[in-house]
Every structure is written in structure tokens, then in C-alpha cells.
């Protein structure tokens, strides 16, 4: 079916999410808690747009809004921009001086406010991506704790988690870099737990924790004999492809 986004006609499938359709048509909608790998968080509300249906307009979050009829969408009306600005202002009060947020603050001309008490150490915007990532990996080591104003993300009892394999998926998916992952030599420290890192058999770099590799083996169902870091794995694959092509 056809829908109109910012006066541009776009093709959409029934049930597709609005954000996807916009992206496909090169229409920019800002996001913070969205990840193509882990869609559907809908917690930051930055991706709001106006949907006009039957003469009336409503504000929806495009990341989880399914297309079910031919609608008209406006991504940058005065109302939407105003609300986005307020949302960003609120987030900037929670997380001060953060690179990812600052970019959006500049883009939407969010004024600096000097009225509230700030926690300079807070970096988490509670988007929920880290929890979802850990879920997808299969470890469920972290979760949201408490509710309302005191909500936060942590391991149970704030103690090192037995389930955590130190893979760092949570840290890599975090939009504000709120999860600390410290590496020194052969050790990695994340969520208060220290891990031993394994060395790549080819280049000698420390690249993954033992627990991570054990888990991968468990999921694969067999032991991988040769341990390779990402870079060397890519090189190995391209080398074997080169061999195959040369032998053809």
C-alpha cells in the first residue's frame, strides 16, 4: 500500500513498522533506543511522528507503529520538534555531557537548562537495549531493577553474575556508552566481574573470554579447535576463498 511521509509517497507492506518504511525511503527520523538487531524497545520516544488519519492527527512512536492503512505522516512538524526538544532536554538532565546525546541536542537546538539537580555520574538512559541484548545472547545476566524514578539496570543484588560470560554485547549496543568494560592485558572487567581473555592463535591478541568461547562451543555443538579473533577470522576466510577461486 501507499503511505505519504513528509509529502513523499512510499510503498509499505501491511504490518510493517513506520520507522522501517521511512528508513527505506531515506527519510530521517532520529532514534536513541532503536537498534536494527533489537527492534521494538519504544522507551526513548525520540522517534515520534504525527500520523494523520480521518482528519485527526495523533502522535506515535514510529519504531513500533504498524502500517495498517493508507496514512499521512509528518516527521518534523513544529509540534513534534517541540516535544522532541523537551524529551532531549529531560534526557540531558539525566545524562550530562554525553557525546551521543550532545549530537542530538545540537541538531534540535535544545537549550541548556540550569534549574535542576544533576547526577554527573549517570550515563544510562534506560533504553533497555542492553537487557534485550543479553536476552538474545541467552544469558539473562542483567535486568531492570525497581520501577519509576528509581529504576535502573543491574545484575541481581548488584553482585557479579554467575550467568555473565563477559561477551560485552550489552556494552556494544548501548547508545550512550554507559556500560564500563575495562580491559587490561589478559583481563576484562565488566559488571563487577573479572574474566580471563583468550589469545588469538594467529596474531596473539586477547579477544574473547573463556566463558564466551565455551558458550559458543555449547551453542554450536562442537569444539572449535582454532581460536581466531575477528580480524584474523576474516583474513582466514578471505584466504580460503582466494584459494577456492584460484583452483577453479
Amino acid at each position, binding site marked *: 500500500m501507499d503511505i505519504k511521509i513528509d509529502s513523499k509517497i512510499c510503498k509499505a507492506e501491511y504490518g510493517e513498522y513506520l520507522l522501517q518504511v521511512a528508513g527505506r525511503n531515506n527519510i530521517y527520523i532520529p532514534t536513541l533506543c532503536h537498534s536494527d538487531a533489537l527492534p521494538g524497545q*519504544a*522507551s*526513548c*520516544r*525520540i522517534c*515520534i511522528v504525527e500520523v494523520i488519519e480521518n482528519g485527526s492527527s495523533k*502522535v*506515535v*512512536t514510529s519504531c*513500533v*507503529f*504498524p502500517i495498517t492503512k493508507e496514512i499521512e505522516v509528518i516527521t518534523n512538524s513544529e509540534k513534534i520538534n*517541540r*516535544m522532541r526538544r*523537551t*524529551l532531549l532536554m*529531560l*534526557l540531558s*538532565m*539525566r545524562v550530562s555531557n554525553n557525546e551521543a546525546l550532545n549530537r542530538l541536542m545540537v541538531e534540535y537546538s535544545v537549550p541548556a537548562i540550569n*534549574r*535542576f*539537580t544533576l547526577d554527573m555520574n549517570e550515563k544510562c*538512559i*534506560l533504553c*533497555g537495549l542492553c537487557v534485550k541484548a543479553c536476552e538474545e545472547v541467552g544469558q539473562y545476566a542483567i535486568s*531492570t531493577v*525497581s*520501577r*519509576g*524514578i*528509581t*529504576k535502573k539496570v543491574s545484575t541481581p543484588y548488584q553482585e557479579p553474575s554467575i550467568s555473565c560470560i563477559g561477551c560485552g554485547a550489552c556494552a556494544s549496543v548501548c547508545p550512550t556508552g554507559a556500560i564500563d568494560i575495562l580491559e587490561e592485558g589478559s583481563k576484562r572487567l565488566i559488571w563487577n566481574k573479572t574474566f580471563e581473555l583468550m589469545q588469538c592463535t594467529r596474531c596473539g591478541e586477547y579477544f574473547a573470554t573463556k566463558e564466551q568461547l565455551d558458550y559458543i562451543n555449547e551453542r554450536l555443538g562442537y569444539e572449535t579447535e582454532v581460536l581466531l579473533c575477528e580480524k584474523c577470522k576474516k583474513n582466514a576466510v578471505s584466504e580460503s576463498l582466494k584459494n577456492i577461486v584460484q583452483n577453479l
Partner: protein
Amino acid sequence: MRTGRKKTILVCCGTGCLANNSYHIYMKLKNLTAEAGIDAEVKPIIKSTGCNGFCEKGPIVKIIPDDISYYRVKLQDADEIFEKSVLRDEVIDRLLYKDMSTGNRVKSQKDNEFYRKQMKLALRNIGEVDPANIDDYLERDGYKAFRKVFFEMTPQEVIKEIEKSGLRGRGGAGFPTGLKWKQCASYDSFPKYVVCNGDEGDPGAFMDRSIMEGDPNTVIEGMLICGYAIGANHGFIYIRDEYSLAIKNISVAIDAAKKRGFLGENILGSGIDFDLQIVRGGGAFVCGESTALMSSIEGKVGEPRAKYIRSVEKGLWGQPTILNNVETWANIPLIIIKGGEWFSSIGTKNSTGTKVFSLVGKVKNTGLVEVPMGITLKELIYEIGGGVIGNKKFKAVQSGGPSGGCIPESLLDMQVDFDTLKESGSMMGSGGMIVMDERTCMVEVAKYYVNFLSEESCGKCTPCREGLKRMLEILNDICKGHGQPGDIEMLEEICDTLSETALCGLGKTAPNPVISTIRHFRNEYEAHIFDKKCPAGICKELTKYFIDRDLCTGCGLCKRNCPANAISGNAKSAHTLDLEKCIKCGNCKDTCRFGAVKVE
């Protein structure tokens, strides 16, 4: 002396009266009856009934068929009541209700100001039946509607009847019930579920508690009728954790209904099953929101989800689900028996039927009031409610709980229904009506609600979590005398964004108490911010009570009336007020006949 009639004694054992010792009164009367040896002609039946709604004047004892209602009954009155009104036909005047305007004693419940204008539909059985006795319910047309539906109507006919009635959801938003059922019935996906929202979380609202405690069968029957209409075989009643008595009474009713074949397998020999389970809440207001409630039933945290795909299509475990409020369910059997058209003739055009309001706060007659939609606030508060306590000046009435707003004196002639309340900046919500007088600080009320919501919010989405946090910060500052210019505008800006971008109803309606108090009582905000004064004399940091030594005669009246022992002084010499102990209740100022108590 012998009347040859069977007398029945009804003792209210709802939570409110139980808190006032009614259970002991019930047991005493029960024992007296047993000891007296049952007279063949006078057979008093003692029933413990559900909440009568008139909790202010509890414990309540009613005797039928004489139709005598006694209020504020104490344990020591039991003997006299038994002797005079049960064994004989006498009336004890001092226990009767005293009419506020005429001062006359009123014998029958029907004639007293509180009940006179009420029309009990959802509350029709409360106070009249023993909730643990299914036969009481059956005697009053219980399960008659279900039988009619089951054996004489098609599902489509049932839905049509509900649509005709114009019934709108009594839980808050007022969505047309018939339409909801029609939509759910149209989806061809099984299993389907029927859910009762018994998570009554609005502070000041207790109508659902009253129905679940006092007439649990009407809820069961309503849900059975829906199950038939939409094709569901499973139901859940989600009851708030704090309502232990409701959980108990519903549980007993479910067991009894099963034994009689209304629930469980092979209902009434038809081969159709319907099972009903109770799910106990965990102490979370947000679980009153429909998608959060469903999440909670599924065994997860009560976080709402986006409602772009409605629950009637994908609800509990992704299946078509009907979720309705307790009071909505209570109306269903009556609509089937008396017809949708009859129901739609009551109330207003777009808000048909009656509504149960919980009239509480600074009002004389506190309790549950069921009246046709369209009644004016003035009638509700002054005629039924008896006016403001202590005859103080009315200031505002808060309707709809934390999702609603304050309605000032200028709007008292408003005919209450879903739409008029919404237009005035408030909403129906569960039907809570909290009366506030001149001694209520409206900024403090806004702060109270924001504080409540900030703890109850699930915390998932930015606008609600961060918005409420900062609004609370601003309101706390204002009440403490640290308000800044621009604070009102900042509150308005956050509220505007919150109302449109929040993920669920809790966040979207959270601005209402703030916006409505700013709209109608802006002067109070400004007084706090610019003059550092609290006009109502409530905000502690901005209010100081003190005794003018020049005017004080040492009569000691203020001292005697102080609930915090904050005033000291010897007879005939000037008294002093200890600010540390002072709770700013204002009793001293009210009682002083010399104007010696002042507020700064």
C-alpha cells in the same frame, strides 16, 4: 409482640465497618439469636453483608422487613437492638439517621439524604445479601441473566443488547463496552480470554472493593455472559494485593458457583467449559493499566506496551482478550434482564446508566454513592454529601484520581458524565470524588499526585520517568519556598510533552492534576513562588501559626483542641505554640474566640 413475620438482621461487614468493629456486633447479635431460641414466628436471620457504602456512619445494622436502619452502632447497643427491634417491633431513635437539614430522625434507609437520590444498579445487592451465600444471590434474580443468555440468546444478540445499552467502561476511559465485545468477537483466533480489572488503585476509590466483597457473584455472572458472547472459555479476575477480603469473598463465590454448575466443566449440562482464576496483584498501581495487568498475569513485571494493536485483537498471550472493570461487569446481568433500552433511558445521551462515585475527603456524608449520570456536582456534594465538614468553604473536588483533575466552585453546576468531566480538564476515572476545602493547598495536591505517580510509574519511557521526576523536583521546591520564576511554564511544557508522548495511560494522564490546578488556582502557585506564602496555610515551611500574647486570655480552648499537644500554658495566662509539634491543622484558629491565634 409476636408479629408472625420472619425478620432478617443485616450487619455490614465491609472493610470500612469491619475497621470499626462490626464483626463483633455481628457475632453478638448472632449469639443473642441462637440463645433466645428461635421463635417459630420470629426468625431473625443474621447476615454479614458487604459494604453499604455509607462508611462514615458505620457500623450499620439494618432490620427487614421493618426497614429500620441503625448507624454508628456500638457493641453495647447489640442487646438493646435485639430486645427492642428484633423480639419486638420498636425503634431506637438515637441510633437512627439524623437528617442534616430538618434534624428529624429517619427510620428507613430510603428516606435519608444520603440514599434518597441514589439509584442502585451496580450496587443493587450490596448490603442486602450475604456474599458467601449463593442462594441469597439466586433469590434476587442471580444467574437468571446468564441462563437467559445461555439458553435463549445467540452471542450476536447478547452483544447487540450491550451495544443498545450504551454502557461505557466504568474503569476510567469509558470506552463503549458493546463495541469492545463486538470487535473481540470478530477475531477468529482461539483461545480467547475474559479479564476483570480489580486492581482499583485510585486513592480514595473503593467501589470495586465494595462490589467484589459484597456481591462477587455479579462479577462472575457478567464475565460468564461475556465469555459466551465472544467465545472464550477462560477468565481471570485480577485483584489488588491489598484487598484480602475481596480475594476471599470472590474465591468463596467461585467455589459455590462451580458446585452449582455455573462454572467449571460442563456448565449447566451444556458441554461447554469456563474456568475462572483469581490472580493476586503485587502492589503496583500501574497494573491497573490494561496491558500492564495482562503482563502481570503472564508472570512478568507490570510494564505496559504500546496499544497500536488493541488487546481485543492481541491481548493476553497474544490472544483476543476482553478486559473490563469490576463495576462494568456488575452492570451486565442487569442489562440482560431488563434490556439495553431500559439502561439507555437512564443517565445522559452519551453516558447512559448510573455511576458509583466514592464521595470522600472533607465532606460530611462520606461513602459510596450510585446515581444516574447527569447529576450535578452541587447535588452530589451538598444534597447527598451533606456539604463540607465543619461548614467550611468549598474549594474544589478532585475527580478521577491521579489521572483526573480538580474542579473549582465555578463549575459545580456541571452535569457529571464522561464527556463533561473530560471537557473540564478532568476525567471520570474510577469515579473518585475527593472534596477539598479552603484548608487544602492546591499546589500541595498537585505535588501529592505527582509524587504518587513517580513511584508507581513503571519507569520504562523517558517522558513519564524523567518528566515526573523533574515535575516533582519543581513542586517540592515551590512548596518549600524555593520556587523560581519560569517554574510554572516549565511544568506546563513538560506536561504538554508527557500527555502526548508517554507510552501508556498513566503517563498520558499524569499531567491532569498539575494542569487543572494551574488552570484554576494559578494564584496559589504564584503566591508560593513569588510571595513565598501558602494561602491555605498548609505548606509547613511557608506557614507559621502563633498566638498573639496581647489577645490571648488563657482560656485553654485551643490547648484542649490541639491534636498534637503543641500548645502549652497555664490557665488565665497567655499560651504559647510549639512550632515543632504543630501539624498546621488549624483547630486552634477555629476554636479561638478572641482571634488570638494567627497565621503568618
